[in-house]
């Protein structure tokens, strides 16, 4: 299914008259809805939306204390699209309460009639922390009710920093990784240099694009049996009305 969508996207890109290089959100059906970004009409066609719900951080000066800060919208009702709740994670040292809140939020979204499918963790995993990160994800996976999927984001160079055995291990813990081709609000200049490594990932992956950014899809990405499509990071228009 996912692959079929992709193939049609590929066709779209090849169609004459469409600027292949600028990411036009209306050509996609999966989006990030981040804090501070006003929902756009394009969300009506969304098959899948990743909604930022919170940030988990250590209290400054006291690494043993953790804060779970709400972000993103209030709970909407009866969304048809698949919803992933996304969390920015700055510390991996969660207390039991963080798991309680996260799972309670999943239930609150579910109870409001939304089709919540999983949790996405947005964490900047330096190489140094990779091992610790995996252990954290394992913990989270164990505590997460089994009906929810677990996903992570990764920077472009992430795929060249993990070795095959690490990917194999990760595949047993998380259901997908979304590889981001942008930083801040711009596509990374030399993003295409990283794509060969990304295409060699042996776990389900999506490519994260930024609305208005650049994307020229090399053919080999769609050829990977692990490729699951695109997610577009929505952003507010540059100049307010």
């Amino acid at each position: 299914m996912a692959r079929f969508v992709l193939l049609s996207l590929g066709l779209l890109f090849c169609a004459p008259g469409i600027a292949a290089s600028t990411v036009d959100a209306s050509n996609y059906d999966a989006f990030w809805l981040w804090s501070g970004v006003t929902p756009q009409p394009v969300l009506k066609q969304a098959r899948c939306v990743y909604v930022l719900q919170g940030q988990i951080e250590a209290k400054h000066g006291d690494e043993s204390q953790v804060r779970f800060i709400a972000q993103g919208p209030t709970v909407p009702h009866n969304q048809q699209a698949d919803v992933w709740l996304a969390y920015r994670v700055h510390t991996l040292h969660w207390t039991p309460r963080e798991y309680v809140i996260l799972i309670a939020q999943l239930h609150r979204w579910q109870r409001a009639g939304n089709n919540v499918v999983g949790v996405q963790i947005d964490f900047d995993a330096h190489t140094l922390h990779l091992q610790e990160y995996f252990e954290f994800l394992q913990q989270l996976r164990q505590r997460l009710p089994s009906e929810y999927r677990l996903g992570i984001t990764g920077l472009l160079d992430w795929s060249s920093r993990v070795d095959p055995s690490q990917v194999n291990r990760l595949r047993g813990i998380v259901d997908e990784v979304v590889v981001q081709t942008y930083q801040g609000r711009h596509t990374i200049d030399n993003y295409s240099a990283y794509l060969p490594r990304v295409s060699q990932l042996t776990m389900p992956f999506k490519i994260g694009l930024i609305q208005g950014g650049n994307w020229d899809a090399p053919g080999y990405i769609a050829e990977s049996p692990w490729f699951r499509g695109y997610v577009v990071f929505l952003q507010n228009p540059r100049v307010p009305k």
Partner: protein
Amino acid sequence: MLRNRCVLGFIFLSLISSVSYASGDYGCGLPRGTIFFRAYDSCNSLPFLSPSNDSRLNLELLLIDAGKLTGILNLSSENTASRDLAQLLVPFDLESWQLQEPGLGTDTGSAKTSANSNDYAQGEGSRCTNAGDGLEAFNKAVNTAAALPKEESTILIAARSALAPNCSSTTNSNWNTPQGIHSALGREFAVYITGANAFYSGDFLAALNNFKSLKNSANPWLKETSRYMVGRTLLNSAQVMAFGQWGDLQLSNVNKDNLKDAEDAFNSYLHDFPHGIYSVSARGLLRRVYWLGDDQARLAEAFDRALANSEKGANNVTIHDLVQEADAKLLASVKIDQIRSPQFLAIIDLMRMRSDGPNPATPLTLADLEAQKDRFASNPALYKYLLAAFHIYVDNKPEQALALLPNLTDARLSYFAFSQQTLRVLALDASKQFDAEHKLLLQMLPSAKLPLQSEQLQLALAGLELRTEHVDRVFAPDSPIRDKAIRTILVEYSASAGMLRQRIKDPKENADVIVAALYTLLYKELTGGKYQAFQADLTLLPSHPSDLLAPFVDNGESKNSEYRCPSLRQVASTLQCDGNDAQSLNCIGELVRIYGVHYGQDSVPPKTDLGGSNSLFPGIDYSRLDAYLNVIANKQADGQARAYALYRAVRCYAPSGNNGCGKQDIPLDTRKQWFQMLQKEYPGTTWAKSLKYYW
């Protein structure tokens, strides 16, 4: 926070502030070595009122001066990406900025004691988050109501406890009104619980009727609480239709009549109960009323009041929370003509001076600022500051800025006074009055006692010394520039070979700076072809060099490498006689390939930043592929060495086809030729045998 992209559209149902970080971007790189930024940059925050600062930081600096907060930098070990890269303390990543509030201890979390008793995140919007507090208060009120029969108390408490607030449910909970209540007071309490149930279930009309019916209750708790709950119910009903499909708030859809009624209800409650149980909460909810009513003038005033009265128990949130709330609810989409608060006007004007200001279509003009003069009547110094900042950041008239700013006094520098003098530094610099700038920086240092002020001055002074070609002064014994990172950057990029040798020999120099100096000196000499100097300077290494220095003195025998190299001393000695010796050139490549490049020698800072210009000992931007190309071109080279150079040159492009060894852009055809040359000319070598592909 307020980057352009961050127009806060989403909000929460509760009053607790929301935090809006802008995007899914990742952490900061190393701070830049300058104090002048025209665009928003929270990765390079500065301890003065700079347009480039996050709006929250500028507000916090003013609040520190007002005695409401203190702030320091908290560099956790996780932030220091790499040990050998000097990390300046100023500029700094806003995430490392740590606030303390008097009486609260470290940080800044929620002041609410119940924050840990439910399963909601801090700031998560729901009228149900404080349902737990409500239960406790209710039980206490029932237990202290003397006229209430004991058995009715039990029933009422059980009924209240059975309320399972479920604000996200689309259906009402299965809750029944308490049975067996016969006393008049008992019935009033039952009405109250029924109202609470309706409130939590979202039946605001029923809740309103129940609460209103209790306004003349003889029980003081019921009377006061129901008055307060009337306001909360009206406020909640005002926003029922205001949320879009994705939970985003649309102010135009707020019910203005209900909102006005809520405001009246809170004001009337506060009139009758100025020091009541809920007066703090009611004042906070009035901020919500102003916000939902898009009344920014009163919202800004309410923030000013809340911030000014912070010590007097006037808030149920911390200063830190208030700053976040003001940022999200006021600054995110501000209408400048509505704002009369000098403090907030200043924060907004600074944002509008950014080169990437919140609304590029209508940048700030001098006329805009001049039109605000009356609104700054209570704080003319702040007004002049903004005019001066405008002349520095927007219309580039530093002389006019200087005319607006006061001279330095001997007093300890508050952040505002420090900001004024910093603008003078920038203005003197922009008008090339370097002597005056130098003098001012030195004069400021003894008065710069607040956190990060001294580090900023040292950076500015170091940059000035570099621009005016006085790097030697930075390393003079009486130099005020003691910051290790600043000295390291100058060692890496600016200092001459002679200065580096002085640093290495100076017993008073910081040990880390000495290691940086040793590495820089030896690396630049070896890669830059200064082979004789390299051999001589090896003697400067300590007998037990650190990990990063050890490769310079490894004797080739012990190296566990695919390619045999003599010691680098030998390599340098050979190259001194024959600058094209193939094995030796390969061996310098091995140093870089195996141990990497350190102390920033593979990248020079931007020209505007410390170390980015006026180097007395520039590096050559060494690339090992250049060495391989040299060897490949040398047909007389030793066969093993040439085979290895071909092998390595091909591998520079593995596995992605991008050059991992330098910046050269070499066509695929050439890389193919290397591969074929290796296979054809050196078929018996390990290198030919082990290379199956080219990239």
